[in-house]
């Protein structure tokens, strides 16, 4: 009976209590939302929106469909094994005449030329030489006469592939892949296969810069965390000093220092150490030096904050328990800085992946990173599809890395720094 009474009392109070809790929480939640709302809106318009747009552009493919609508429709059911039938030729002739009139032929020609070198010529010559709509039944013959390429299967598969509305063409190209005439995914021709190389170079340079930052930053962060406050503050100002000048100025300063008639070479020459000036810039060395300099604070600060949280009592305890300094460092201090190393490393690595100005200014042709090509396709050749696809691949790789890091950090917390 008592039990029944108790559960009854619970049941009668539980619902109102929950509702009251919700009501009490709601005000708080609304307030919290109101506080972050401006930033949320800002991010939506300046970050989430553009990224979604970029990802869309990587697969968007409507240029040919808009310029040659009837051809794309006529090819929709074509199996691609033989040349298409007369109907497709007639549709193409009609489309070309219409596109010539509306001036969209160049847009389609540009897109088709990405997929098949020389397509621009095929299309423009055809447009120039096609006087009028061919008599019914003679379209195939007429077009074939104007340009023999229309008797090639490849020409037609290219139009069909570019028919959209979405395509994997740019993403494949970003990975040095392409579709052959039968639609199978194959390696791109050697003269176009450069992006894997560029991605590899980008990751290699980023990795090297991250390692350099860690090696140079760790002792500084340790000093910062262990010096008395007065001197530590002074040192911190030096660490943050680079943030007070623009990236461009800092990079140009490296040019002044490292060029063949620069400060470093002149000093070495004057000291009699070298006879010929060393090549310190417009190569991988210059890129790594300048990028490490720029990115060093991003490594030092997370390291510092993780080291600041490590009580000196731990090292004393380790010593009192019989651990020599090196053992104490490796087994007690270092494992506790791992979160800082991870955070700093990830930050520097991801920032380095996107570096553009520094490699562009102090690197040679073989040191340009992926951002350079993205910028090239966006601003110079207006190949937005490929630029977006390169960006999407980079984004994906970065997200994957961040996930792997997250998993590693999680595992770290479960198993600890010491492995048996």
């Amino acid at each position, binding site marked *: 009976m008592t039990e029944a009474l108790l559960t009854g009392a619970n049941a009668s109070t539980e619902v109102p209590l929950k509702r009251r809790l919700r009501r009490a929480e709601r005000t708080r939640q609304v307030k919290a939302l109101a506080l972050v709302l401006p930033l949320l809106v800002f991010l939506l318009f300046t970050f989430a929106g553009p990224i979604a747009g970029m990802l869309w552009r990587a697969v968007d493919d409507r240029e040919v469909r808009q310029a040659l609508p009837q051809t794309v429709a006529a090819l929709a059911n074509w199996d691609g094994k033989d040349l298409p039938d007369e109907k497709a030729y007639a549709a193409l002739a009609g489309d070309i005449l219409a596109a010539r009139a509306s001036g969209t032929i160049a847009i389609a020609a540009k897109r088709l030329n990405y997929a098949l070198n020389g397509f621009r010529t095929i299309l423009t010559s055809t447009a120039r030489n096609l006087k009028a709509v061919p008599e019914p039944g003679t379209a195939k013959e007429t077009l074939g006469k104007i340009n023999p390429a229309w008797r090639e299967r490849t020409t037609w598969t290219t139009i069909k592939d570019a028919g959209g509305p979405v395509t994997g063409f740019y993403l494949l190209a970003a990975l040095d892949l392409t579709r052959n005439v039968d639609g199978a995914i194959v390696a791109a021709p050697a003269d176009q296969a450069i992006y894997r190389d560029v991605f590899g170079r980008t990751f290699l340079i980023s990795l090297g810069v991250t390692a350099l930052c860690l090696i140079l930053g760790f002792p500084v962060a340790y000093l910062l965390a262990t010096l008395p406050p007065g001197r530590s503050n002074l040192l911190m100002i030096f660490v943050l000093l680079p943030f007070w000048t623009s990236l461009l100025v800092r990079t140009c300063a490296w040019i002044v220092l490292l060029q063949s008639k620069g400060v470093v070479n002149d000093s070495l020459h004057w000291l009699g150490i070298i006879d010929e000036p060393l090549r310190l810039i417009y190569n991988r060395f210059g890129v790594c030096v300048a990028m490490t300099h720029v990115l060093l604070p991003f490594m030092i600060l997370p390291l510092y904050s993780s080291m600041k949280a490590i009580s000196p*009592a731990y090292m004393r305890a380790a*010593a*009192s*328990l019989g*651990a020599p300094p090196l053992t104490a460092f490796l087994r007690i201090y270092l494992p506790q800085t791992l979160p800082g190393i991870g955070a700093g490393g990830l930050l520097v690595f991801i920032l380095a992946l996107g570096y553009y100005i520094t490699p562009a200014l102090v690197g040679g042709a073989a040191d340009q990173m992926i951002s350079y090509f993205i910028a090239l396709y966006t601003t110079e050749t207006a190949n937005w599809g490929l630029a977006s696809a390169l960006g999407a691949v980079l984004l994906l790789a970065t997200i994957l890395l961040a996930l792997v890091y997250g998993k590693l950090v999680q595992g770290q917390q479960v198993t600890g*720094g*010491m492995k048996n």
Partner: protein
Amino acid sequence: MEAGMVTPAPALVRFSGIQKTYDGEHLVVKNLDLDIKKGEFITLLGPSGSGKTTTLMMLAGFEVPTQGEIYLAERPIKNMPPHKRDIGMVFQNYALFPHLTIEENVAFPLSVRKVSKAETQARVKAALRMIKMEALAQRRPGQLSGGQQQRVALARALVFNPQLVLMDEPLGALDKRLREQMQLEIKQLHETMGITVVYVTHDQSEALTMSDRIAVFNDGIVQQIDRPDALYEHPVNSFVANFVGENNVLAGTVETIEKDYCRVALAAGGSVMARAVNVSGAGASTSLSVRPERIAIIPDGTSSDGPNRLPAKVQNTIYLGDHALAVLDVAGNAEFMVKLQPGVHDSLRPGDNVFVTFGPKDCLALDPV
């Protein structure tokens, strides 16, 4: 003073003429000479800034004496790095390694000594059994309560059988009940394992509970080293009398000295007989020290002709469960405490005029405060 009580053995630790300064101007430790015998539980007691922790840190090897030498088992260790000293240490905030499990924490001193895996396992298990924490071996320090962390720190400092164990206010962060329980546990461990312990605290009741001997520090100087009862009964100066246990102070001037006793004229009038402990001679000013539990209250009008009988006015009574305190105004000291049996205080009302009386042997004439 009490050296005859213990069988003479070579000291395990000897501080010889130790001085320490951090800034080159003030000595934190002034000329310390201290012998610690094997198997002894010695407490360094004193207020903060008295030099007790510095002394401990010099023994552990984290501070270097400015002058003098420390001997451990007859070997000078002034320049020996901490990890070679074979001294276990329990820190104020335990300093358990947060990234290691309890088991790994306790195994740490063994693994750095390259003890075999099987033996390490056995010893860690035994150590965890000793502190009754086998079930929590796989937890991390952050998941344990303060008392449990304290036990693990203790096990970690003992598992490698160090010749000496140092404890730096290890119970400071625990609540009162847990602290008292841990005091008994540590004392028990000391007795069963026969280890030598140097314990630092500012809590005099903790020192009295646990120690074989207590060294009272003040101002960088050891004021007195003695057994707890001797320290309480026979303090050598006013600082020790005031720091160890409750104490009532009355100011006065020595009139005459007769052997061990002297007559002291109180500054507020009247005179009492007191044991002459630390007085230079007739005419010298002195501080009288009387413990609250050695004083009796005589209701006004009752005749009694004790040698030390002073008029008093009741200020207040405080009920404390197992006993009660009467706060009186005696000879100019308005916070004169008398410990009473509960119930007795009921008859006292603020404003009552009474007398207090105490035996001459319970009244110590010490150096003026």
